[in-house]
C-alpha cells in the first residue's frame, strides 16, 4: 500500500517536474527566440512602431500685388478624416455632417460607407468651421472621425485677378493654373525630413525627435498687378458685359515704359477659394489664351511701318472711295467720310480703303517685317505658360493682294489682347517694345531677390511713335474713338471691330463681332496703355449705334478704367499746376 502510494507520489513529482521542465524549456526557447534568433527583427519592429520618418511640409510662398497686399496666402487649416470601419451608421453620420460641411449628403454617405480604414471627409476647413464640426460630432456622439492639420490656400480678394493668379490642387497644394502653376517651383519651397519617436497615443516623445533636414519655406512672388486698378478694370468690364450681353471679355492695363502689367482681366472669372462654383471654362485667362482678329486696331502697324519707311507722311493724301474691290473681294468703309483723306484722317476715320492703299505702297515683305517686329505671331509675355502665339502666316504664305489687304486692316491675323496691348505700348514707349510681364520679383526666404528683367527691342523710331500718338489722339478727338475721351486727361487710341469667324459655318458671322479699343493715356506723356476686348457684344445705344462696334462698347470701358487708374497712379490732370 505504502509502496503504491509512494509510486503515485513519485509519479506526480516526476510529472510535475516534467511540466516544470517543459514549461521552463518553453520559456527558455521563447527567450532564445526573442532575445537571440529573432532579436534583430523584433527590435526593428518595435523601433518601427514608435519611430516614424516624417516629412515636414514647406509653407507655400505668398503672392503679393505690387503694393504688398496678399493675393494668395497659405494658412493652416484642418481636414476632417474618418475611419469608415468604425462608423456604425454612415447614413446617419452623413445626415449630421452634410449641412455643417456644406457637402452633398448622398456623396458623403457613400464615402463613409465601406470597410476602408481611412477617407477624407472634408478638406480646407478653416478654424471657425472646425469648431462647428467638432460641436456637431460631439453632440451626435459620432465615432471614427478626427482632424488632421492641412494647409489651405486662400485668396483674400476672392475672384479678383483669379485667372491670372491661378489655382492650386486641393490635395498636394501644387499649382495647376496661372502664376500658381508658372511659379510653382519657387512658391512650393522644399519639404524637410525628421525622425520622431511617438508613444502609443501618437504623441511625440521629448528628446525622441531628430531633425534630418529643415523645411525651406517657398519664395514669395510679387506681381506687377495693382489691386485697385485691377478692381476697377474688372468692375468696368463686367458692367459692359452685362450691358451688351457679351459672351465675355478681357482687359490688359500696362505701363508702357516698363512692360509691367497693372491689371489683367478675364471674364467670366472664378473665385479660387470657392471651388464649388468653379466652371472649367472660366479658369482660362482670355487675355493671353484667346486669339481674335484685331480688326482696325492693327491699322496702327500698317501706318507706323509706312511712316517709318518714309512711304507716307501724316499729310499724304489718298483717294478714299467708300469701297474698293480686290481680286473679287469688296472692302468697304463704315460710315461716310471725305473722298480724299490724309493718312491722319484715314486713321481717325478708320478707313479700310485708305489703309489698304497705304499697305499697297508699303509692300508685303516690309509690312510682314513690322508685324513680326511688333510681336505678332509669337508669345508676348514672360510669365504665362500656354500663352497663345496668335496667328501670323509668313509672308511667303500670303495668298496675294486679298491677303495683303486683309492683313492691312487686321483680318487674317490673330492676336491676343496682351499682344495688341504690347503693340500700342511700343508706340507709347517711343517705339521700343518692352516685354510685358506680371511677375515683378521673387523674394526667397534667405533675402535673395530676383527681379524680372524684360527684353526690349527697337521697332520704330521715337519720331514715328510720336507721330502715331498724335494720330491716335485724333481718333479720340475727331474720329471713331470719341467715346474714350476723358475730360481730365488727353488720351489717344484706336477702335477695332472684327467679324467673328464661325468655324462650323466656315464663314464670317453677320451678327457677332469682336469689339476692341486700345488706347494710350495721357497721350503726351504716356503712363499707361489699356486694351479692352468684348466678345460678341449685342444691342444698341440710345442713338441707335450698334454695340457690336468697338467704338460703342469697348471705348467707354477704356475711358472708365483709365480715368480711375490715372487718379490712382497720381497722374496730375490737365490744367493742374503740375502740368
Amino acid at each position, binding site marked *: 500500500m505504502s509502496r503504491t502510494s509512494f509510486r503515485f507520489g513519485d509519479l506526480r513529482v516526476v510529472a510535475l517536474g516534467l511540466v516544470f521542465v517543459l514549461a521552463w524549456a518553453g520559456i527558455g526557447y521563447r527567450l532564445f527566440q526573442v532575445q537571440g534568433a529573432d532579436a534583430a527583427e523584433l527590435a526593428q519592429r518595435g523601433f518601427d512602431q514608435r519611430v516614424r520618418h516624417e516629412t515636414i511640409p514647406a509653407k507655400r510662398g505668398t503672392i*503679393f500685388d*505690387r*503694393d*504688398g*497686399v*496678399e*493675393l494668395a*496666402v*497659405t*494658412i*493652416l487649416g484642418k481636414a476632417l478624416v474618418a475611419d469608415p470601419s468604425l462608423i456604425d451608421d454612415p447614413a446617419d453620420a452623413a445626415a449630421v455632417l452634410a449641412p455643417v460641411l456644406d457637402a452633398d449628403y448622398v456623396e458623403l454617405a457613400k464615402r463613409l460607407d465601406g470597410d476602408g480604414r481611412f477617407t477624407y471627409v472634408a478638406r480646407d476647413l478653416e*478654424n471657425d468651421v472646425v469648431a462647428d464640426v467638432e460641436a456637431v460630432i460631439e453632440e451626435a456622439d459620432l465615432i471614427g472621425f478626427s482632424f488632421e492639420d492641412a494647409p489651405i490656400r*486662400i485668396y*483674400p*480678394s*476672392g*475672384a*479678383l485677378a483669379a485667372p491670372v493668379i491661378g489655382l492650386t490642387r486641393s490635395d498636394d497644394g501644387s499649382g495647376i493654373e496661372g502664376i500658381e502653376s508658372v511659379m510653382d517651383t519657387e512658391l512650393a519651397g522644399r519639404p524637410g525630413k525628421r525622425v520622431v519617436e511617438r508613444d502609443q497615443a501618437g504623441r*511625440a516623445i*521629448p*528628446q525622441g525627435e531628430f531633425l534630418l533636414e529643415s523645411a525651406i519655406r517657398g519664395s*514669395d512672388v*510679387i506681381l506687377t498687378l495693382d*489691386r*485697385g486698378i485691377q*478692381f476697377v478694370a474688372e*468692375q468696368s468690364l463686367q458692367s459692359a458685359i452685362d450691358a451688351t450681353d457679351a459672351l465675355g471679355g478681357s482687359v490688359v492695363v500696362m505701363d508702357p515704359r516698363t512692360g509691367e502689367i497693372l491689371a489683367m482681366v478675364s471674364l467670366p472669372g472664378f473665385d479660387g477659394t470657392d471651388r464649388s462654383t468653379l466652371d472649367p471654362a472660366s479658369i482660362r485667362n482670355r487675355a493671353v489664351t484667346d486669339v481674335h482678329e484685331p480688326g482696325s486696331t492693327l491699322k496702327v502697324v500698317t501706318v507706323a511701318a509706312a511712316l517709318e519707311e518714309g512711304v507716307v507722311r501724316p499729310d499724304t493724301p489718298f483717294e478714299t472711295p467708300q469701297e474698293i474691290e480686290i481680286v473679287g473681294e469688296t472692302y468697304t468703309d463704315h460710315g461716310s467720310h471725305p473722298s480724299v483723306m490724309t493718312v491722319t484722317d484715314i486713321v481717325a476715320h478708320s478707313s479700310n480703303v485708305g489703309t489698304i492703299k497705304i499697305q499697297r505702297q508699303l509692300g508685303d515683305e516690309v509690312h510682314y517685317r513690322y508685324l513680326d517686329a511688333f510681336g505678332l505671331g509669337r508669345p508676348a509675355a514672360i510669365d504665362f505658360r500656354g500663352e497663345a502665339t496668335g496667328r501670323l502666316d509668313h509672308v511667303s504664305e500670303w495668298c496675294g493682294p486679298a491677303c495683303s489687304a486683309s492683313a492691312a486692316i487686321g483680318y487674317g491675323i490673330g492676336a491676343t489682347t496682351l499682344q495688341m496691348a504690347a503693340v500700342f505700348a511700343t508706340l507709347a514707349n517711343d517705339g521700343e517694345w518692352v516685354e510685358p510681364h506680371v511677375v*515683378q*520679383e521673387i*523674394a526667397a*526666404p534667405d*533675402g535673395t*531677390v530676383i527681379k524680372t528683367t524684360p527684353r526690349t527691342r527697337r521697332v520704330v523710331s521715337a519720331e514715328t511713335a510720336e507721330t502715331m500718338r498724335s494720330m491716335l489722339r485724333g481718333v479720340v478727338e475727331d474720329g471713331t474713338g470719341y467715346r474714350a475721351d476723358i475730360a*481730365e486727361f488727353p488720351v489717344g487710341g484706336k477702335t477695332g471691330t472684327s467679324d467673328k469667324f464661325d468655324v462650323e459655318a466656315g464663314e464670317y458671322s453677320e451678327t457677332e463681332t469682336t469689339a476692341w479699343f486700345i488706347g494710350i493715356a495721357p497721350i503726351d506723356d504716356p503712363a499707361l496703355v489699356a486694351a479692352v476686348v468684348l466678345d460678341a457684344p449685342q444691342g444698341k445705344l440710345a442713338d441707335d449705334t450698334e454695340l457690336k462696334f468697338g467704338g460703342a462698347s469697348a471705348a467707354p470701358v477704356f475711358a472708365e478704367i483709365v480715368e480711375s487708374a490715372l487718379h490712382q*497712379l*497720381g497722374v*496730375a*490732370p490737365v*490744367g*493742374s*499746376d*503740375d502740368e
Partner: protein
Amino acid sequence: MTAGAFPRTPVGRIDRKRSSRPVVRPLVIFVVAVTIAFFAVIYSRISLDRTAFELQQLDREIAVEEQLHWDLRAEHARLQAPDRITQRAAELGLVYPVDQRSIEVTGVERGVGGPEDRLTDLRALFTEQP
C-alpha cells in the same frame, strides 16, 4: 601575581577595531557619493525631460503664433478687399462725388515714390515673416 594572572589583553581585537574605522568611512563616503550621483543623474534627467517638454510646448506656441500671424494677415487682406469695401460703401449709401476737382497742394510730393522705395518695407517684411 604572575603575568599569567592578568587578563590577556586582546591586542589583536583592539587592533582590528582600530583598523576597521578607516575601511568603513570611505565605504560610507562612496555609498553617499554614489547615492548623490544617482540622484544627480535622476535630477538631471528629469530636468532635461522637463526642458524638453518646455521646448515642445514652446514649439507648439510658436506654431500657434505663426498660424495666428498668417490668419491675421489673410484676414487683413480680406478686410481690405475692394469688393468688400465697395459693398460696405454701397450699404452705407456712399457714392462717388459728381463734381470732382483736382487740387494741387504745393510742397507735397506727387506719388508715393519709386518702386524701390515702395518695396523697401515689403522686403523687410519678407525677411521677418515666419
